[in-house]
């Protein structure tokens, strides 16, 4: 009974706190341009869901679709690379404490603190021949997301007992097998967290594609929002419809991964 009451309260509170703002976005997305400009909670005079949807998708030669494709490629590639690299670093960083550990920790933290310098980065990319290429942008996202991922992995490797490492090493496992067969599977929940969070970050990234892979055919998803904003007249209905359209896929992806985290709970660990 207590469980039901708690659930009911949670659902109610969540609706008020989280769904009302979402409701505003959804309401504005289906209004016509003039009513949307009022920016209030009025009920739409006409329901223009299909028209607004079509207009947003067609804007600037179907920029939204190209943007989705680009953002997806960028996200999948960079997150896959990031997770593997960062897990390797986090693992060794936590296990092997040496005189370099302090410096490496500092360098990792600085990645979170210092914003990237755009123009020198462009110079580096140009000298490597990676400027204005998708692989170049993928590597940029990997570099900028590294700190967050390393931090998370390092923190969670601490929860894996060293006895497991020793058991595996005694059995003759080399570092690669130790990492791939023993450690990485135990980092499932944090790996999923990193995947989810970094996917959101990269998918919603606006400035990096703007500077490192410019051009309309290279547009990413956040950039499409600027099609409807202007100093003198913002088309709020299309802007919010665009926002809905670019929020929904990550939400779906999150709900999919969400079940995996639950699976982690019931599967437990391989200890004991």
């Amino acid at each position: 009974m207590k469980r039901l009451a708690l659930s009911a309260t949670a659902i109610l509170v969540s609706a008020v706190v989280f769904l009302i703002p979402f409701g505003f976005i959804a309401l504005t997305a289906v209004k016509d341009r003039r009513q949307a400009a009022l920016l209030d909670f009025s009920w739409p005079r006409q329901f223009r869901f299909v028209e607004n949807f079509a207009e947003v998708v067609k804007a600037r030669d179907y920029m939204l679709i190209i943007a989705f494709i680009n953002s997806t490629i960028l996200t999948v590639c960079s997150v896959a690379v990031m997770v593997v690299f960062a897990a390797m670093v986090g693992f060794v960083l936590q296990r092997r404490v040496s005189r370099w550990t302090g410096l490496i920790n500092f360098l990792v933290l600085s990645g979170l603190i210092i914003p990237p310098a755009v123009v020198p980065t462009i110079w580096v990319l140009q000298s490597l021949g990676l400027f204005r290429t998708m692989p170049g942008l993928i590597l940029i996202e990997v570099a900028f997301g590294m700190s967050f991922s390393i931090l998370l992995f390092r923190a969670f490797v601490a929860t894996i007992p060293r006895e497991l490492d020793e058991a595996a090493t005694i059995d003759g496992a080399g570092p690669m097998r130790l990492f791939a067969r023993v450690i990485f599977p135990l980092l499932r929940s944090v790996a999923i967290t990193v995947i989810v969070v970094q996917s959101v970050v990269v998918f919603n990234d606006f400035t990096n594609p703007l500077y490192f892979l410019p051009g309309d055919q290279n547009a990413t998803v956040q950039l499409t929002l600027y099609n409807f904003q202007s100093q003198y007249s913002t088309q709020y209905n299309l802007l919010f419809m665009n926002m809905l359209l670019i929020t929904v896929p990550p939400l779906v992806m999150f709900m999919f991964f969400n079940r995996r985290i639950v699976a982690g709970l019931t599967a437990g660990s391989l200890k004991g």
Partner: protein
Amino acid sequence: MLTLSPRRIAAVAAVTISALVLSACSPGSLGSSDPNAATTLSFLADNSETSMKIAEGLAKDFSAKNPSITIKVETRPQGGEGDNVVKTRLSTGDMTDIFMYNSGSLFQALKPEQNLVALGDQAFAGNLDAAFKTTVTAGGQLYGVPFGGATGGGILYNKAVYQRLSLQVPKTWTEFMANNAKIKAAGIAPVIQTYQDTWTSQLLILADFHNVSAVQPDFADRYTKNQAKYANTPAAARGFQKLQEVFDAGYLTKDFASTKLENGVKHLADGTGAHYPMLTFAVGTIVTNNPDKVGDIGFFAQPGDDAAKLGLTVWEPAGVYIPKTTTGAKLDAAKKFLAFVASKEGCDSTAKAFTPSGPFLVKGCALPSNVPGAIKDMQPYFDSGANSPALEFLSPVKGPALEHICVEVGSGIRKAADAAALYDQDVKKQAQQLGLPGW
């Protein structure tokens, strides 16, 4: 089940690599030109609705006249982010073949002599309005042609309210304040302000510039040389005082701190606000959002203290420029395009694309007769020559914090004299950044 076995990792890696290979081909393979047939030029414009419509209209009409040249329009954000994109692309040698960008002080910040193609030798150079030419000239060389028409800065007003209260268009600031008092007595907010869009707070100060140069013609020059400041030039400081006056008298709309420009325009159109200090660009917003009320809106220049010296402060349009990285056949094609833009056909194309915000600055171009009344109200100031470019077009010195300082004055947080002094301090950074002598 998501098991993270090594086989799975290998699979993911394989997918990644193949995606990388694929993606190395896909973006960028669109928009490539066939060298045998036509020349394709890329044209970078900001992504506001206005600029997009004008740019695409020009591209289409030009290609109709010159079938062997295609213009492809690319977008960039507006505002500060757009400034950075333009500067970054120019400095890394990665700019499109043609691009549009502000004229005046922002144009100077692009280091034109280093980065842009000089156009003084072109035939169309003689067609351009003299005042406009000064805003796209550096080191004595011309670098751009106008994109769109001029914009006026002054007071948009609701003619229906004026008629109802039997008011006359004010010719001095005192008359303006007297009108405001009567409007307030009738229960309507006299002056609309929209500080949620911070840049709109600057209008009362900036649109006052004609009145400043009427009293002190060499102010812009001395200002650039750090010989005159806002704080110690009474005519200039008057602008800040005017903003404080309307706040102190309680003439502002009640929601001034939380409204955006579009709501301010709506106040004006509905008649819940009588005056809106604004650029005539906003008339286009009224045409889009409240087309049935456009006939009620009029425009007059911001009055000074002397009726005889009344005149309009003009904002010059953006310019179209060619970066030095455009060469050979593309350079010739680009120059042809600029010639088109600076011609009567170009003006007609622009007027067709979007409601003009003011007269064109190319000789031989006239405003179409169906422009809204508020735009027509600007014509007398041009016919009589009673107009000056805004300060940012006569001097490269403009501080970045002006809009925030104006919000403070207009909200009663800071007094006018203090604000003028603060702004003088702010522009020092800009002047030093530009390496101007005397600062």
